[in-house]
């Protein structure tokens, strides 16, 4: 198993956190993991992204130019990263903010109205967890429970009150896709 994922969105959409959450969960399951942020003076207010690699062998570069999957939370990110996905790879896209269709035909696209669902849950900020849940439903690399268990280690303590909400968000994303997939 070797999975390379890029997660991208506006600064503040929480893509870094879901990346760390995924990496941490991988580590708990005994896998090799790496997490690598894009860093530095990104244009302020521009996009943020990180790369996570989860693998059962040693990880060479924590960067990738041909990810297996991308999770994109806004349009600039979709424009930038969906062309990079491997043939046959996966794009999880946030349809709440992205109207545009992914132009490629050779990748699988999972559409998640993440902000809307998050709003339903009462907090836009968990849109990221919904995206991650959706991703995890499709890519069976890490157990959803491991991810939930990891929340308390990854979220800063002051946000621990929000763990149940985050769990719910993960579930919602997860279920959404499981349904879609089973429908298919």
């Amino acid at each position: 198993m070797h999975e390379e994922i890029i997660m991208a969105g506006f600064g503040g959409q929480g893509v870094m956190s879901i990346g760390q959450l995924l990496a941490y969960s991988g580590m708990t399951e005994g896998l090799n993991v790496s997490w690598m942020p894009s860093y530095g003076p990104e244009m302020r207010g521009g996009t943020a992204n990180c790369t996570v690699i989860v693998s059962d062998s040693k990880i060479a570069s924590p960067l990738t130019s041909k990810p297996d999957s991308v999770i994109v939370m806004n349009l600039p990110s979709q424009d930038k990263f969906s062309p990079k996905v491997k043939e046959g790879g996966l794009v999880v896209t946030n349809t709440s903010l992205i109207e545009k269709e992914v132009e490629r035909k050779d990748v699988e696209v999972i559409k998640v109205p993440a902000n809307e669902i998050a709003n339903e849950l009462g907090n836009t900020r968990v849109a990221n967890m919904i995206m991650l849940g959706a991703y995890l439903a499709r890519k069976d690399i890490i157990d959803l429970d491991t991810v939930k268990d990891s929340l308390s280690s990854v979220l800063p303590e002051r946000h621990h009150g929000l763990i149940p909400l985050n769990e719910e968000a993960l579930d919602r994303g997860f279920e959404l896709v499981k349904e879609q997939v089973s429908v298919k």
Partner: protein
Amino acid sequence: MKKIASYPDSLTEKHFHYCPGCTHGTVHRLIAEIMDELEIREETIGVAPVGCAVLAYEYFDCDMHEASHGRAPAVATGIKRVHPDKVVFTYQGDGDLASIGTAEIVHAANRGENITTIFINNAIYGMTGGQMAPTTLEGQKTTTTPYGRNLKEAGNPIKMTEMLSVLDGPSYIARVSAHSPKHIRKAKKALKKAFQMQLDGKGFSLIEVLSTCPTNWGIKPKDALNWLEEYMMPVYPLGDLKDIKEVE
């Protein structure tokens, strides 16, 4: 209909990369307007700092020279000595001017180097992600003062502008703020006077502008304006600190 306020000529079309609500942009506009009004765009060489304003050379539509961190006054000195008839300004942050570049600003000021310095005091290192600046306030939390700035260990919020005013070289030194339209207008007046001082050959001038960094202060742009007024202004009182001449 007649245009009463619009994008100044001395700015390029490039969008600022600053964070939403960051008053770096405001000061850029003022400088550009002054270049327009004094008709000096083609005579001016600006020196950009290392700091959030590092890309200032993409915004000002005049010749620009990027300096190394803190050394803008030295770079400007080199330029001005070669072109004493041109207008040379530096634009520096508080880390740039008041920390690493302390020696350079003190000596440029003391030499009365005929340049104009714009000193953006936002009480933080913006570009590098919110470390303590020498101007950071007592108790202020930053990534390098996670428990709040403790004066015993991390020193006092430095009064660079007061300090420089003691020297013989400067002609005009003032502190202004960019947190309200009224203060922004005053800031422009001071800045324009500083450029005029240079045009009149009076020597070194410096305008400190209290400025916001909503991102690294961790608050909304609006709240940043209030924070500036409430917490920064008492420590860094506004006004002229040195003025060898009245420019009408």
